[in-house]
């Protein structure tokens, strides 16, 4: 594997010995490859997920869901279910209305029905909740609840949502006469339009980023345990943001916040779909309060696919103005965003379209303007999920598709066209036309590396040969992405008024072993390893000597959690800073031990570990372990210095970080069947300093597989009545190893100038960057057939239809 690296940071100790057999490692004193500490329990089946939580006397809940996309509820009769043996409680919308809990706030300032009272607004919506002695009885009792529905005309196609006379979905909101949610714009319309009027070349393309679902291995669920004696509520649920959940429960249910404990145990994948609060969680809590016993609710796969946060569903029109020789001057975008029945997207409050505003991508463009209109349809709520970096996935897809459309129009090479327009390294920090300040980057270097790795010229020669001589179609697709992650500066970014800063707390025991407590929460990212490595690098200890505690609000400081690739940019920064605070305390204690002035001490890390010593005489020093013991001893400390080394911090990021990468995908397409085979995938990522390169590569592997899934097979489709056509893994397809090539990874390292260790976050990079590369590759293969665009997913049927000149709508049922 090729890798070009620029050495960057004093923190990165280079003492790692790589085991060539396994690619794994001896434990490094800080950054470097090491096995994930959490894997010991996962590979032994000893993880502890919500469904593993079993409490004495625990009851089980199940949800009755709407079979209709849009219908008025005339009556709900639960008497037969209540009389069923083993049933402890049946909760309906009416029950909840009596507690003022029938509706709950969403993360976007809208409300969502917990259990429907007036109407159902999407198929799969929650209507009633049964609590029973066991899950079998709970399910049996669901069938005994009689709901009388009056079906209403649904709005399924977002493009029809604003039509005159379209059914009004949200008649619960006073004065609402249509399905419009918001208009949002960014950039300079006048300047952009003026450039378009004078431009030598303009291109336009409509495209849909279809509705998809993150489909984590573990579905959602909760165990709620309300203790009637202490008044304390404990909720186990796989949330990506336990502290935010706690505050919301306090605000919504009126429970005192210190009497709420949210525990997010091991989580089987989040991808943004586990940020919000789902009706099932509230039902489990109400069920526990009503029965006085713990209540478990676990949704099944179909429920997860039908009702939890979907992703994307952006109908986009992109336009580019350029010179004849390929200099991009301006870009203009119009988006129709399908937000479903309730506006429940999870993103910073001031950004109703997420960070879509970075749609100018990696290119130095003079002017840009976008307009986004959000609408309701009779589909499940959500929209920001599936590792989308708050809609940057959509933005990258748009601009990278448009670059290929422009290349097609100009008959230019897509790699050369990109190279010509990339932001040059000397332009950083770079302010984009829509006001984003990119922190650092060397884009041409990353693209050159990717092209070299894939042997681009050779592939183009092979393609020319194939086009001449016949045979399977060869396609080469490029995507260059820039991400904006690590939300974010409190001044601009909050969720429901909660600023996006995160806390960290580091305790050092007398023997020098440390416990780090962080507010973010791992859904598989490897925080227990990465964050231990950050502490290890700062204090000169082994990562094995640092325990990371997370996911329990009673044990960790406040913060907004893990999504939007923010854990290393925000909590990782907090971790470095709290460790530096500990190190500074250690300096004072060491000074007392050495009877020297703190200013005369210097810090060093050797293979033996970290130590403070008198400048110029390294032998006259104390290790961090010795200092920790002394800090707890009867050593006389200077005035004003407390004992112990423990420290606390809150990190408010000064800016987002901007990871980037250059991806090249190579496909073979069978024109007789429309089947696509991904032959190769080269991914060059620059996420700044890599703390544990193995974990970074794992994140990239997963995201690339996601990209192949979205580009080639994943789709949440609906028929015209709003029936969900992808409600199981038989119809909602996840990619397997059979569809994935052996990934070829490369790296460049451009540290973030404002992050304490120069890291940028990488959890979503590959998911954001890869779909466009795959789609561009397939369309490159189809170019001799005059095909310029076709929407995802490029299933065999869609590719074949495109070859016949009749691309089909992918979001609705077969047309």
């Amino acid at each position, binding site marked *: 594997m090729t890798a070009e690296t620029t050495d960057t940071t004093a923190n990165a100790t280079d003492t790692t010995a790589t085991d060539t057999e396994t690619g794994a490692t001896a434990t490094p004193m800080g950054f470097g490859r090491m096995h994930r500490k959490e894997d010991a329990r996962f590979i032994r089946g000893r993880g502890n997920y919500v469904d593993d939580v079993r409490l004495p006397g625990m009851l089980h809940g*199940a949800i009755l869901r709407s079979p209709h996309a849009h219908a008025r509820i005339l009556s709900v009769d639960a008497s037969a279910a209540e009389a069923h043996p083993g049933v402890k409680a049946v909760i309906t919308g009416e029950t909840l209305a009596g507690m003022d809990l029938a509706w709950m706030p969403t993360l976007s300032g809208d409300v969502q029905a917990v259990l429907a009272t007036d109407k159902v607004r999407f198929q799969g919506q929650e209507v009633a909740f049964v609590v029973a002695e066991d*899950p*079998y009885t709970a*399910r*049996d009792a669901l*069938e005994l609840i009689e709901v009388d529905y009056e079906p209403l005309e649904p709005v399924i196609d977002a493009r029809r949502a604003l039509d005159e006379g379209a059914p009004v979905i949200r008649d619960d909101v006073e004065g609402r006469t249509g399905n419009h949610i918001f208009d949002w714009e960014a950039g300079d319309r006048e300047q952009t339009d003026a450039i378009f009027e004078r431009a030598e070349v303009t291109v336009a393309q409509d495209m849909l980023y279809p509705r998809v679902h993150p489909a984590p291995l573990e579905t959602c669920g909760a165990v709620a345990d309300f203790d009637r004696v202490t008044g304390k509520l404990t909720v186990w649920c796989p949330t990506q943001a336990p502290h935010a959940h706690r505050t919301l429960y306090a605000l919504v249910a009126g429970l005192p916040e210190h009497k709420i404990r949210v525990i997010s145990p091991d989580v089987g994948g989040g991808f943004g779909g586990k940020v919000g609060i789902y009706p099932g969680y509230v039902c489990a809590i109400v069920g526990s309060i009503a029965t006085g016993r713990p209540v478990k609710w*676990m*949704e*099944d*796969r*179909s429920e997860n696919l039908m009702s939890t946060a979907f992703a994307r569903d952006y109908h986009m029109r992109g336009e580019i103005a350029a010179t004849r020789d390929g200099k991009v001057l301006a870009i203009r975008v119009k988006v129709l965003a399908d937000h479903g029945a309730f506006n429940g997207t999870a993103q910073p409050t001031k950004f109703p379209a997420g960070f879509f505003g970075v749609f100018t991508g990696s290119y130095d463009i003079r002017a840009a303007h976008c307009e986004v209109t959000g609408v309701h349809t009779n589909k499940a709520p959500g929209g920001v999920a599936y590792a989308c970096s708050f809609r940057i996935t959509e933005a990258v897809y748009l601009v990278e598709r448009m670059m290929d459309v422009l290349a097609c129009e100009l008959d230019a090479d897509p790699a050369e066209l990109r190279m010509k327009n990339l932001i040059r390294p000397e332009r950083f920090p770079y302010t984009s036309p829509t006001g984003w300040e990119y922190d650092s980057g060397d884009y041409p270097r990353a693209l050159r590396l990717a092209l070299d790795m894939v042997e681009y010229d050779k592939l183009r020669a092979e393609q020319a040969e194939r086009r001449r001589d016949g045979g399977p179609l060869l396609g080469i697709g490029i995507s260059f992405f820039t991400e904006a992650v690590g939300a974010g500066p409190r001044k601009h970014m909050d969720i429901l008024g909660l600023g996006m800063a995160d806390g960290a707390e580091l305790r050092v025991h007398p023997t020098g072993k440390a416990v780090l407590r962080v507010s973010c929460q791992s859904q598989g990212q490897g925080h227990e390893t990465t964050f231990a490595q950050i502490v290890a690098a700062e204090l000169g200890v082994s990562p094995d000597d640092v325990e990371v505690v997370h996911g329990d609000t009673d044990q960790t400081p406040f913060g907004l959690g893990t999504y939007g690739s923010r854990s290393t940019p925000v909590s990782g920064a907090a971790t470095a800073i709290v460790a530096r605070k500990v190190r500074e305390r250690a300096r004072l204690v060491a000074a007392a031990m050495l009877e020297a002035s703190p200013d005369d001490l210097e810090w060093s890390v050797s293979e033996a570990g970290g130590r403070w010593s008198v400048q110029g005489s390294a032998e006259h020093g104390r290790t961090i372990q010795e200092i920790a013991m002394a800090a707890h001893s009867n050593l006389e400390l200077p005035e004003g210095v407390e004992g112990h080394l423990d420290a606390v911090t809150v990190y408010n990021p000064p800016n987002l970080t901007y990871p980037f990468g250059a991806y090249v995908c190579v496909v073979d397409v069978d024109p*007789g*069947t*429309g*089947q696509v*085979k991904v032959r190769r995938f080269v991914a060059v990522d620059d996420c700044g300093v890599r703390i544990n390169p193995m974990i970074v590569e794992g994140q990239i592997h997963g995201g690339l597989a996601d990209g192949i899934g979205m580009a*080639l*097979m994943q789709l949440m*489709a609906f028929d015209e009545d709003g029936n969900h*056509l*992808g409600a199981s893994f*038989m*119809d909602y*397809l996840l*990619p*397997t190893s*059979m*569809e994935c090539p052996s990934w070829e990874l490369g790296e460049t390292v451009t540290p973030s100038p404002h992050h304490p260790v120069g890291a940028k976050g990488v959890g979503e990079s590959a998911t954001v960057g890869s779909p466009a590369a795959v789609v561009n590759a397939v369309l490159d293969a189809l170019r001799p057939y005059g095909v310029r665009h076709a929407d995802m997913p490029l*299933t*065999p*049927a869609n590719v*074949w*239809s495109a070859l016949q000149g009749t691309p*089909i709508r992918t979001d609705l*049922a*077969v*047309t």
Partner: protein
Amino acid sequence: MQVPARFEYERASSVPHALALLERYGPESRVIAGGHSLIPMMKLRLARPDVLIDINGLEELSFLGVEDDVLVIGALVRHAQFLADPAVGRYFPIFHDAERVIADPVVRNRGTVGGSLCQADPSEDLSAAFAAVRATAVIQGPGGVREVPIRRFHRGPYETAVEPGELLVRLRVPIRPGAASAYEKVERRAGDWPVAAAGAQLRLDGGVIAEAGIGLTAVGAEHFAAPEAEEYLAGKAPGAEAFAEAGRIAAANCAPRADQRGPAAYKRHLAGELVRRALTRAAGRAAEGTAQGAGDRTGDRRGEG
């Protein structure tokens, strides 16, 4: 959590015992073998049998081997066993082609050949493969054993010639000297049901096609077969033109329906294209001498890519 509705469970200890249980519990009972279709349907509560009659312990239904120039496949033979068997690959490469693209190893370890046919899913791969090789189904009931040609076994979607109280016990496939076969499938993703698939068997005699067998699945072909295309090929010299025409005829005579896997026009196109490819591959095997009698390559599909 998906849980089935309440049901009773009986474990059969022999074929007569299984038949007795079927008689005792009547039409609301269901036979369970691998369970890979029935159990998901029960968990979704689309199937709600009162009683499950488990035949997994019936060794007598697990026989797989050649008897008097006939390949005999017990109804309880697992997909994995069928795929791993060298004799099956030697005489009927079509079965190994098909089995490699049926579901995934976990399903193949448990799912059975007989269960696949009795489920009678209109997209079942093995139904097309058995139709192509003109197998015979052996059905046992209270009155004894009867044989049904495979092309009369399927009566429609999810409907077979196995009457209530009866059990499919084995399949018989005559080994035809000089015949070669192949199976071609297009799927959206590894392990998916086919968008369309075709199987073909060719028996050549004196440079012309003595007998052609063509199976089709997921495209609404009656009895999973393409008799018009088979008739067309009889007596013709094998070759690109004849195979393409056979594909066109097969495509014209099937009745695909649009669904999530694709529009009807595409499936009809695939029917023709895959029939052409399966015939071409079968003819290639005949020419290579890998017709019934020689070995076929093994290995997984990744190896082929």
